[in-house]
């Protein structure tokens, strides 16, 4: 396998890694115990594998691991690194925005990316942003509510 040496920041920690060119970001993360991002559709449709790459949400299932070179990736595991849940996570709990939980890490990261680029989204903007993230359990309404609740929390 052809490989490339990369320097990257994973959840705030700078590191130099040797990665196979054909390795997917999702596998790189999960092989390191960061199993929050989940494989599901594997076709960039469902959003279960969403992580933030330099702040933007991407499908880790269809991103090459070498893309981390010189860039920074954040996964759901990093959100409570300071000991407290992120406001998005708190809001998901408060609004009962999860059931099986398999989509939840992706939803949380997608929501966080939205609020970082648009801190006070309208309901329609939240819906549009989440359109590419599938939840099969909740019927979405509690998730949209949670994102709006998180926006309020973060503004306060």
């Amino acid at each position: 396998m052809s490989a490339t040496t990369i320097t990257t920041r994973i959840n705030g920690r700078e590191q130099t890694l040797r990665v196979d060119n054909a390795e997917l970001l999702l596998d790189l993360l999960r092989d390191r115990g960061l199993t929050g991002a989940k494989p599901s559709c594997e076709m960039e449709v469902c959003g279960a594998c969403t992580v933030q790459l330099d702040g933007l949400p991407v499908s880790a299932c269809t991103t090459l691991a070498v893309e981390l070179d010189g860039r920074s990736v954040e996964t759901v595991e990093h959100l409570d690194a300071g000991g407290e849940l992120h406001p998005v996570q708190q809001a998901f709990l408060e609004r009962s925005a999860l059931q099986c939980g398999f989509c939840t890490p992706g939803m949380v990261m997608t929501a966080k990316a939205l609020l970082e680029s648009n801190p006070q989204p309208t309901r329609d903007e939240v819906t549009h942003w989440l359109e590419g993230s599938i939840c099969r359990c909740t019927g979405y309404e509690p998730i949209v509510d949670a994102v709006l609740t998180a926006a309020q929390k973060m503004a306060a």
Partner: protein
Amino acid sequence: MKVAGQSVPRVDGPAKVTGRARYALDLTVPGMTHGAVARSDRAHARILSVDTGEAEAVNGVLEVITGASLAPLDLRFGHVVRDHPALAVDRVLYHGEPVALVVAETRRAAERAARLVSVDYEDLPAVMDADEALGEGAPVLHPERIERTKDEGLDQGGEALVGNLCAAADFGWGDVDAALAAADLVLEGEYRYPMLYGYAMEPYNAIASFEEGSLVVYSTAQHPYMVREDLARIFALPLARVRVVVPYVGGGYGSKSYTKVEPLAALGAYVTGRPVRVALSVEESILTTRSDGARVRARSAFAADGTLLARDFDVVMDSGAYTDNSPVVCAKLANRCFGPYRIGAVRVRVRSAFTNTVPASSLRGFGAPQGNLAGELQMDDAADRLGIDALALRLKNVVRPGEEILPGKRGIDADLPADLDLLTTSLGWPNAPEGRGIGFGISASDAGAHPTSVAMVRLHADGSASAAVGATELGQGSRTVLSQILAEQLGLPMEKVAIVAADTGVTPYERTTGASRTTALVGRSLMAACADAKRRVAELAGEGAEFADAIKAFFGAGGEIIGVGAVRRHGEFRKMPPFWEIGCSGVVAAVDAETGRVRVEQLSTVGDVGFAINPALVHGQDLGAATMGLGAALSEQLVYDGQTLANPNVVDYRVPRCSDIPERLDQILAQRQDGIGPYGAKGAGEGTLNPVGAAVAAAVGRIVGRYPRELPLTPERVWRLAQTEDARV
């Protein structure tokens, strides 16, 4: 009550929002290898030979396992009929059937090698349509029939199973023909419900290993004890030596009921001696299990005053290549199709047909939505033709609390007229907003499955308590609700209780986590276990003693007190079903006349749950189930193009998205404490789905002027319906 009835936070919430909740897919075991499946590219063919040479030559490949290579083992599984081989042996019965399992050190090597397995086939004629499969001259999929397992809870009997008849249900009462002849109005129609894929977001996966003479499997199974039985049979092991562990499950909805990939992983471990993971893709998961599609011919006879005189249902289910759970779905479809009405004469015939397609099994609703589409749409159509309000027509015929809808079965433990009032008030019936249509309907499902459940409670020396139950946590909130029951029964705060779940090596027997049964049945067995534990405390230390004190007094140091409880088909659980799960749902919808696109603007549901132990969780189940119903109503369908599936992926199989959610949602709870479960609870989680398809179709029908008879209501289908010159149904 202190804890029961409260929307306490989910006990699994923090783990799930931080990504730390462990699913089977997140686990690894030391020395784990990876299995990949080579699949049939024929719908029906004889396997002449399998060339594994190229696959074996791939670096890192340990074994390439074929059905024939395992000759001494009987690879077949199935809880009703043991006819489903984990790997095809001499014939393949559908496109996508597993033919070989490659085990390799890496997933990459396994997947690459699986593509190099070369099979020499002799094609056989295939039958892709259920009606054709039951007709003369169709190729027979299972010429040699295997006896049923004679499980009391599963074997529903029926007519002789010959040809491609997988299962049948046939019953009725009264003189249907006379009632049809004498009726003022007879409606007749043919309705179609699509085959669906549950799309639980965690695809089927399992890790298996043989350890010290036991088979240990981590899996996504909803019913680990059923899987344990299949594995024990295949490997000739005692149940005590098969351990199936189910961590958090990434969605189930019935699609993970019964055995899926566990035998494949176990075969890999058996042959290689190494732990093996088999993790399917979504496409492969679709090729593993779908739901039964149905063609429903229905006749309903009414008197001029709206009295429902008779119903006659003739249903053919497309059940795919193997038996799996279709006999039970068949029986349930029969019980659920004619609706919770007083009907003098009923005739129901449901036939489940083998076809050369992906095997069908359980999915949320389980036979109910298929029949409900026809039954409820004929109520709406009859109301129009008789000049009677559709609500009034239902209220005239619907059963009252305690009335039987199936002779000899438990009477209806719900107040359907009151539920219909709540629902139609929420929907604003009959006054639809300008250009909109309202549709609504009801259903009653014989739920709870066979009532066998065992629970164990452990009282600890520090005053805390844990319970071991076999129920799986699929997202429905079973661990939370059971924690609440445990806390309530023992008078403990939530922080001092814990649930250990779904490990057949540790937790006591649980029949299934399906049929909306966990709250009611596991809840009751848990209550019995709590009572048993308290009885022991009283024996040891007298009435009213604190259990921590009793433990200390009895053991001196350490120790614990264990209570066990069980629910079985006995006493108050003798009469089937254990409870009825009511569906009572409606929509307000709009149609874009030019494109045919349907927009559901309001979704109202009544959860007739007896008692909501956790109202927030019930709300989540009711909305989630109804949303799945919207998917089937509007967009979801597996489509065969010739002998292959045209859309085995989430790109072309469209499930509801965020923007599909109605602007107005109203999830009403009706809590009359009339159920058999704890505190008068019944089950939830499926009911609100069941009438949604018919409700959306009725709303659309009221807008375009004729009722649809086939789901999903894709824009094209609605556009065509609006173009049709035919009279109404």
